């Protein structure tokens, strides 16, 4: 929810671009020399903790206890990783997280693009009122309704079931608004009109015209949704049992041992973060584009 609310900010809180911009403040070339040290500092600060995770995760507990601590990765990662799989059912956690994040992403893309299409291109009674409701839901602290949600899941018999994690976040207000804006600008009305002349139903228009046009937006929304679902913690912690965890829940179990075994805990953290880092390395450019531009225009 926190993430969703924050992302909402990029939809609602951004002024329309006023010029063609282009970026870069005015200055002499010699400033280049003073700019890059700052940039490198930012880069170091933001990547050091990640680097540190892999460093600690590949050391022995004895090496980590030294002063100064070891600053280069060691050769103990596989041994620590094996201990992770021995301590908690990490394989199951990885599979569960894949199922959860995959299902949420698929349903979010389908439902949000459908609703976005209807809000952007189909006239119907109550459209603007319903759209306003969608906007308001983005500000709703849904996360704070966990107690009744838990009671609800018990009544449905879904407690401790992955469905309890998947279904409540299967569609988001942010996604609907995001898709509505993208559909409004990327799908020309003329094309839809031509489709109608050809006898397409609205479903035909959605399937054959809207979906192909939405592909870039879907990539961005899909990536954001997948990462958020993978990283979600509080609700899975409440509703799932430690025997059937997601990755984040399994990590918290690892950290709840008798004493803090940092090489073990950070090896688990590294394993649970790797998939997301992989996704980020492959598609990070698109995600950044989505944050900076995709969600803006409207």
């Amino acid at each position, binding site marked *: 929810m926190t993430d969703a609310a924050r992302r909402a900010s990029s939809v609602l*809180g951004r*002024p329309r671009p006023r010029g063609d911009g282009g970026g870069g403040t005015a200055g002499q070339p010699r400033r*280049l020399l003073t700019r890059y040290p700052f940039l490198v500092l930012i880069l170091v600060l933001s990547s050091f903790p990640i680097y540190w995770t892999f460093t600690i995760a590949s050391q022995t507990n004895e090496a980590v206890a030294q002063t100064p*601590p070891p600053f280069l990765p060691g050769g103990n990662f596989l041994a620590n990783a094996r201990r992770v799989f021995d301590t908690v059912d990490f394989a199951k956690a990885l599979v569960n997280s894949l199922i959860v994040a995959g299902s949420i992403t698929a349903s979010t893309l389908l439902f949000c693009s459908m609703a976005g299409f209807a809000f952007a291109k189909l006239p119907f009674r109550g459209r603007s009122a319903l759209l306003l409701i969608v906007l308001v839901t983005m500000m709703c602290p849904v996360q*704070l309704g966990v*107690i009744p949600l838990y009671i609800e899941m018990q009544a449905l018999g879904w407690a401790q079931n992955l469905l309890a994690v998947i279904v409540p976040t299967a569609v988001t207000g942010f996604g609907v608004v995001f898709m509505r804006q993208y559909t409004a600008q990327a799908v020309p009305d003329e094309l839809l009109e031509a489709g109608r002349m050809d*006898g397409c139903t609205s479903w035909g228009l959605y399937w054959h015209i809207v979906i192909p046009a939405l592909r870039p937006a879907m990539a961005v929304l899909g990536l954001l949704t997948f990462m958020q679902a993978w990283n979600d913690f509080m609700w899975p912690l409440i509703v799932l049992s430690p025997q059937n965890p997601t990755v984040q829940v399994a990590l918290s179990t690892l*950290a709840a041992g008798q004493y803090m075994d940092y090489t073990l805990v950070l090896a688990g953290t590294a394993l649970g973060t790797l998939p997301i880092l992989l996704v980020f390395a492959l598609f990070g450019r698109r995600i950044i584009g989505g944050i900076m531009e995709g969600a803006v225009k409207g």
Partner: protein
Amino acid sequence: MIARRRPDRAAHLRPALGPRSAGVARRLLRRVDGSVSPYIYVAPFFLLFIAFGLFPILYTGYVSLTDRDLLSPGGETYIGLANYRELLTDRYFWNAVKNTLLLMVMCSVPQLVLALIAAHILNQAVRLRTLFRMGVLLPNVTSIVAVTLIFGQIFSRDFGVVNWLLGLVGVDRINWQAGDWTGRSAIAVMVIWRWTGYNALIYLGAMQAIPKEHYEAAAMDGAGTWRQLWHVALPALRPTIAFTALVSLIGQMQLFTEPLLFDASPGSVTGGAARQFQTMTLFMYEESFRLGHLGYGAAVSWLLILMTFFLAALGYFIARRGAQMAGRTP
């Protein structure tokens, strides 16, 4: 694609309706399609939101008026405002309120200031733009659980980098988890680290919409790069800043994972041995899911929900004022 689709659909209508009624059926279908299907497209969102968003929030209000217990579902009695009366005199609750508000400020203010500075620096990058942008977003794709565990090690008393660095300049080892200000500061560092880059990218997006001539005019007037940030970028970004501030404040009201996992004794839900960094959400979790007092926990939730709405309304008002003011300057 469209042309190819048409015969298929007609073929599937024909067997059921016969060739002559196909035209009527098509017109009927089209009318039904036009009036009904928009609602079908938006229905999944609304159904799911009502079932798993709106209903729980409202039902929280009812549960908060009962003594419902985690272990005896259905056995609750209506007790009116008793939970709220008890909260008013519960010093653990007020401690959580204090910590939540303190952390809200400690996390949000530095985060947004740093994000502005970072965005300004990023805006000057000519080469390797994508690398730098991905770099600042890296913390944000890391899960909060991972962030807390990593920083738990970095801030650990005996083996942590922070204490080692402090030791180099002659400061004694600090037991970060044990103190109240040290614990809250460490948590604030985690939040700031995870969110600064994200906000910086939002600001950067808005900065790129500022016409370059504005910067050039300021540079002609002798404004250095930091004065350009202050006089050119800041006024243009005002609505964006107001909104990110609001969203960040609301996000920090729900701080949960950091105080839960930063605790020195693993598995504890009190936010430190002396509850020095227990937030309202963590207090709600402790009462509801550790002690089983769902009714009492729901009262905490409901107060948090009200506080959030109040903040959101306030922020909306401020953002609108900010937008108006920004609109007035040419």
